[in-house]
């Protein structure tokens, strides 16, 4: 339930990027959120909508791309994408798998409106 504080961090980055590019507005934001990040996409959307009022991203669209859990097995070298939380290697059954993707919370890209042609 820490989605609001994460969104506050997102807005820090949005403001920084808007300044950097002399943008007037942020019109779209794309986040990549891992299935194992502990964050609920619906709550992130609500937090974003609540936070954006009166900011330069007031009219921005938020898109959340959910990143599946990707495992790598150090025992057999296998790679595996999982929808559940069974952390074992599909090929050799090893439990020593590493989670290489699926824990991230990343601002992937944003769309800015500038007054330059």
């Amino acid at each position, binding site marked *: *339930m*820490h989605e609001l*504080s*994460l969104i506050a*961090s*997102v807005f*820090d*980055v949005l403001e920084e*990027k808007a300044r950097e*590019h002399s943008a*007037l507005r942020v*019109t*779209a934001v794309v*986040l990549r959120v891992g299935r*194992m*990040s*502990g*964050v609920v996409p619906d709550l992130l959307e609500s937090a974003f909508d609540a936070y954006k009022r009166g900011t330069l991203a007031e009219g921005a669209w938020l898109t959340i791309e959910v990143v599946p859990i990707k495992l790598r097995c150090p025992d057999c070298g296998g790679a595996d994408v999982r929808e559940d*939380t069974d*952390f*074992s290697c599909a090929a050799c059954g090893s*439990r*020593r798998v590493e*989670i290489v993707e699926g824990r*991230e*919370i*990343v*601002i*992937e*890209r*944003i*769309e*800015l*409106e*500038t*007054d*330059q*042609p």
Partner: protein
Amino acid sequence: MSTKTILVQADILATNKQAAAAIRQELRSRGILAVNLLSSPGSGKTTLLEALADRLKGRYRMAVIEGDIETERDAERIRAKGIPAWQITTGGACHLEARMIGKVLGDVPAAIDFLFIENVGNLVCPASYDLGEDLRCVLLSSPEGDDKPAKYPQAFLSADCLILTKTDLVPYLPFDPAKAAAEALSLKPGLRVFTVSALRGDGVDALVGYFVEALERLRSGRA
């Protein structure tokens, strides 16, 4: 007027990770082992810290940072044991963040061995925030049920050790410590598991041994 798309690829938790890295470096250079205690509310974090205070007394020096949404209650309990304690009240936030620890760090005495950080009672959100600790311990108390590791995987996946608490209640509850441990170990092989009754003092010495070993490792690795 024109629009342009910018590839950002910024980790939203980057600021926290940087703050945590700075804390870790600072504490390691002072030779202090930091332990982050994470669990649901009421699983016995503060009671465990009281038991640790009794066991460490006269041998090692400890300090405690307490995280709660409201009140000084936990810090007062720790201070009553003669242990320096700081209370962080988050005013609603469900977890501690590294910068909150950073603000208190200057007040923590240099001559201590262990800094315990008791996170806000919550088995979900604190798992996402590195506080600069060297060890992360998840507590699971017998009344909570032995089915929790698979239900709250992030906390157990991110932990170094699992402490099964309130084991004195096991005879009265449908709680199987072996099942809880096996479930946590299937998520995180190599997780160290301890069973403790802080009220009776059972299992506390083994846990102290684990912390002392980690402290010695930290100090021997110091430049």
